[in-house]
């Protein structure tokens, strides 16, 4: 594993290198998915090129986390194909799925560090579980990864002693430990102050370029994603509703995208969860409702 750690020490300007490989790493074709009866994804198709950073946006509950779950094989679609590096994820057996997942890195919203292990042991976890490297080599690798996220000094701390931003960076170091081909980020910026957001955003871009990864970043943070993404997609109505470049997002007049970009409360994305008209419900005219509705 060659590790260009040196190149990561100095501040790298956030320059978006255009995707060098045009061929897709992920290809999702007509995927349908429903929780119980409620459809979440309805015929979603998407292809992600090798080497790009793709920002996935969409309203709360639009199925962004669900999409990552489907790509990681944690949940199965009702219909459709999810090809990752040529393999159809939903059809893989456990062994093949696990083999594929060793080449994934996933960053969960709040880091999901193992709370009973120290920072060092958290980052060492993938090496100890997936490789037979001697402990001395593991030690060096862990320190290099921690150095890459600027937290070598925190190696001895427990996760409970970290701030949210630090925890996110440790989790990032853990996620890239095995030099994955694909990184999945679920809302990596939530709950971070602007500085930490900037640090994590730069890291995402830097790691992507330094290791030749492909990254899917689910986020609500338009600013951050515009800075680092090569492409932005917006999920709505269970599909890829818009597929834009960051420049498009800044200039477009599309009402839907503008609502996101400008943070308007109501617009094409409704503020209300689907419900019967308020007056009807207050007057007890409908039966359905959160409390079983009005009595007849």
């Amino acid at each position: 594993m060659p590790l260009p750690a040196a190149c990561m020490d100095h501040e790298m300007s956030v320059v978006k290198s255009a995707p060098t490989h045009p061929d897709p790493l992920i290809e999702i074709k007509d995927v349908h998915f429903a929780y119980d009866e409620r459809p979440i994804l309805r015929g979603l198709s998407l292809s992600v090129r090798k080497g790009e950073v793709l920002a996935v946006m969409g309203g709360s509950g639009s199925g962004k986390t669900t999409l990552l779950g489907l790509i990681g094989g944690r949940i199965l679609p009702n219909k459709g194909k999810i090809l990752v590096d040529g393999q159809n994820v939903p059809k893989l057996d456990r062994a093949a799925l696990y083999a594929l997942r060793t080449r994934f890195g996933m960053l969960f919203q709040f880091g999901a560090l193992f709370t009973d292990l120290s920072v060092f042991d958290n980052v060492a976890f993938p090496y100890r579980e997936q490789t037979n490297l001697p402990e001395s080599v593991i030690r060096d690798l862990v320190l290099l990864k921690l150095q890459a996220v600027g937290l070598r000094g925190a190696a001895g701390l427990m996760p409970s002693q970290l701030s949210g931003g630090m925890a996110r960076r440790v989790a990032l170091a853990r996620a890239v430990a095995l030099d994955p081909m694909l990184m999945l980020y679920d809302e990596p910026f939530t709950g971070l102050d602007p500085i930490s957001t900037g640090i994590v955003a730069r890291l995402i871009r830097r790691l992507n370029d330094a290791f030749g990864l492909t990254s899917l970043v689910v986020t609500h943070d338009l600013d951050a994603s515009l800075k680092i993404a090569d492409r932005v997609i917006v999920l709505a109505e269970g599909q890829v509703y818009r597929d834009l470049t960051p420049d498009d997002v800044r200039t477009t007049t599309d009402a839907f995208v503008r609502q996101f970009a400008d943070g308007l409360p109501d617009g094409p994305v409704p503020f209300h969860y689907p419900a019967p008209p308020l007056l009807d419900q207050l007057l007890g005219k409908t039966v359905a409702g959160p409390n079983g509705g009005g009595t007849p």
Partner: protein
Amino acid sequence: MNSVIEMIEGLGRSVLNALARLGLAGRFFLAILMVIGVPLRRFSLLVRELYFSGVRSLLIIVVSGTFVGMVLAIQGYEVLQRFGSAETLGVLVALSLVRELGPVVTALLFAGRAGSAVTAEIGLMQATDQIAAMDMMAVNPIARIISPRFLASVVSLPLLACMFSAAGVFGAYLVGVKLIGIDDGSFWSQMQAGVDFRLDIVNGLIKSLVFGVAVGLIAVFEGYYAPPTAEGVSSATTRTVVTSSLAVLMLDFVLTVWMFRGLNG
């Protein structure tokens, strides 16, 4: 009329829910058994859980056992001396402990002390995506997290039950012989004459082994399937204690009937 139908519907629903949950638990149990070799091969995983489940329960078990034994001695003596057979106190205490109180009380205490902790720990790991993260790192969480905790419960409980019974006998000895003044020799000899190794001690061990499986399974199951919220984890923890206690008491009845049937033939 309508309300009666609604009631029956409600009953049917809850029965179906309970059955579905039982089926889920059964499948979960099988999944654990499939990977039970992992904590045996990677012994350090098991050792850590033995520490948290077993060693940490040691004090409460030994102290409770001693007190239960002392109380048994006082109460038993009071009854036995009415019939002029106070020397049989040793048998009474030893049989009560080894057959029933050792396995049962230990399992109840263990469910409250260690089972609830396991549920809370796994529930929190689930709520904070630690289990999902592990799964995404291609490490089977059932093998790595669940099965060591389950196995630790199965191993700890018989050991703890033995310590409980031993402490109880010791407590009874203190009160019966040292305090009340029953003859030392007849206390032990009556006990040895009345307690059978296979029938009483081994059966008690089997009981606590079964309780270990039940409490361990309930604890990891409730934690694993706890709703990922603070409320979900706390109610799962409560459910672990309640369900394990009920399961232990019911299993105890079944096992007792099965083990001691036909003994008076």
